[in-house]
């Protein structure tokens, strides 16, 4: 990709002047060179690249797609054996919007099976590796999308975020990822995991690229009754606003004992950068933060177990041979789902079962209310929250695969955001001494993505972390 543009903004200009074929060719070459190392794509075939029929803003610029977003006529597996061979008869709304904008659909990215995971190790197609260190995980579940963007195997990509699945991989791979406000982007055509949490969002190289993508993706869709019927601003305009006078809160519960000192240091330094730029920094409190993982692993798995009830081998995907219908259900699901999917289906089934519903599910929903109220309170005092994305830099493959709870705790700083439905972005905040990316998170009020773009862009321009590239 040395002669070709890296960022989405550059790619649009390039495609405008010289057409998109050169871009697609050089990107395909890059994938063929490095994807054997990263395994960022589940499904990439240069002959299969889906060129646009319309001339929109994107002018044929290739965009990569997480493999839980339905693409008409193109296999969508959710990185699960149970969906092997599933070819959606329709496009997700975000895919329609990308096509309208003239995007080329480039390839489908690897992920944790059904987005269940924080490391992209639960994929039925093998783990994705972190381009900064191939012995380490890229984060998850949108690890393929983030690794592809970081390794210049993609210009920009779509991910989905239920408990941190855009932000954690963005942080671990040193790129930008936005989880929009719940309802900002249509979920129609996203294979459902936790329906009251899921959001689709962009993973990009720069904050400006992220704003360009959000201008295309955001907006009301009558096919998703939870999508918000609110006007969509031009997010690129927000990039121009100075941060002077912005009030930024550091929640004390996000700077805890036991977290990595280099991560802690990087985020505090970011606060100093904001202070220098004229923002006000203030300590705030989100007192129920420590309960977020517990609430999530009740409420989100309950939703997941219900949502995964539809995979029974009847209408599409994998079916196990069996003599009776009952045996067919059991065998299909047993052979089709991986261990983490089974774990969450069982846990969700348990917390919803008679006799346990009140003590677990109902209790979880009540504590969820308290977590939402924490954010309401904090946003009376500040405009944005600045936090780490993860308590550690990227960990090694296999390190957390034997103990699910340890893996779940990687999301301790991202999950509250989904419980409350507020928007949040992960962006690069520097590197560890050993050269691993560190991410920081900016959280805003519902539908206040503009404040995130404003602050993120100012910090990015000041620090220029995005200019660092992994050597792969």
């Amino acid at each position: 990709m040395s002669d070709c543009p890296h960022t989405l903004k550059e790619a649009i200009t390039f495609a405008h002047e010289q057409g998109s074929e050169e871009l697609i060719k050089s990107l395909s070459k890059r994938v063929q060179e490095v994807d054997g190392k990263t395994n960022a794509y589940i499904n990439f075939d240069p002959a299969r690249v889906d060129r646009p029929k319309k001339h929109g803003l994107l002018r044929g610029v290739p965009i990569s797609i997480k493999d839980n977003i339905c693409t008409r006529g193109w296999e969508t597996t959710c990185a699960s054996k149970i969906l092997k061979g599933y070819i959606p008869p329709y496009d997700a709304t975000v895919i329609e919007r990308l096509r309208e904008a003239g995007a080329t659909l480039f390839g489908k990215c690897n992920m944790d099976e059904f987005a269940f995971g924080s490391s992209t190790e639960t994929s039925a197609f093998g783990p994705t590796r972190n381009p900064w260190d191939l012995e380490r995980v890229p984060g998850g579940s949108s690890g393929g999308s983030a690794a592809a963007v970081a390794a210049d195997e993609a210009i920009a990509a779509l991910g989905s975020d239920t408990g941190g699945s855009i932000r954690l991989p963005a942080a671990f791979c040193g790129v930008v990822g936005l989880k929009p406000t719940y309802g900002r982007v249509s979920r129609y055509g996203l294979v459902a995991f936790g329906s009251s949490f899921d959001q689709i969002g962009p993973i990009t190289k720069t904050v400006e690229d992220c704003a360009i993508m959000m201008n295309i993706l955001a907006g009301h869709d009558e096919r998703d009754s939870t999508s918000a019927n609110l006007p969509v601003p031009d997010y690129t305009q927000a990039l121009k606003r100075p941060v002077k006078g912005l009030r930024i809160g550091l929640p004390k519960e996000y700077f805890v004992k036991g977290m990595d000192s280099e991560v802690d240091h990087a985020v505090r330094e970011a606060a100093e950068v904001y202070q220098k730029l004229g923002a006000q920094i203030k300590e705030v409190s989100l007192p129920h933060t420590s309960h977020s993982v517990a609430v999530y692993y009740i409420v989100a798995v309950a939703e997941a177990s219900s949502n995964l009830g539809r995979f029974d081998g009847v209408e599409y995907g994998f079916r196990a041979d069996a003599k009776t219908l009952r045996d067919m259900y059991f065998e299909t699901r047993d052979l089709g789902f991986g261990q983490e999917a089974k774990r969450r289906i069982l846990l969700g089934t348990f917390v919803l079962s008679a006799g346990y519903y009140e003590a677990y599910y109902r209790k979880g929903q009540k504590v969820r209310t308290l977590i939402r109220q924490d954010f309401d309170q904090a946003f009376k005092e500040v405009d944005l929250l600045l936090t780490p994305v993860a308590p550690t830099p990227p960990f090694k493959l296999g390190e957390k695969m034997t103990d699910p709870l340890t893996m779940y705790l990687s999301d301790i700083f991202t999950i509250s955001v989904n419980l409350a439905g507020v928007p949040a972005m992960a962006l690069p905040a520097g590197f560890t001494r050993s050269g691993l990316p560190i991410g920081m998170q900016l959280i805003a009020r519902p539908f206040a993505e503009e404040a995130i773009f404003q602050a993120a862009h100012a910090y990015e321009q000041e620090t220029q972390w995005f200019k660092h590239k992994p050597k792969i």
Partner: protein
Amino acid sequence: MSFEIEQIAELARLSLRPEEKGKLKKDLESILAYVEQLKSVPTDHVEPTSHVLNLENVFREDKIISSEVREEVLKHAPHREGNFFKVPKVIEQQ
């Protein structure tokens, strides 16, 4: 927390293999032990959140539109017969 992993698996329509059961049961026990912490949070007068947007019902016109995807949908059925999905026999013979 005591529970029968077989009973939950039955409800979830999963036939676990014998070698999976022990590990999955242990994992579930440790996760359930972790979520016990919520018991210490007072929630007597707290309303549960089922949805963050506090949405009202969303209504639309009840219009008939043709989706014209029958063939496309059936094309990917594991087994079909004519315009139907075919599954193993459900009703036992007397």
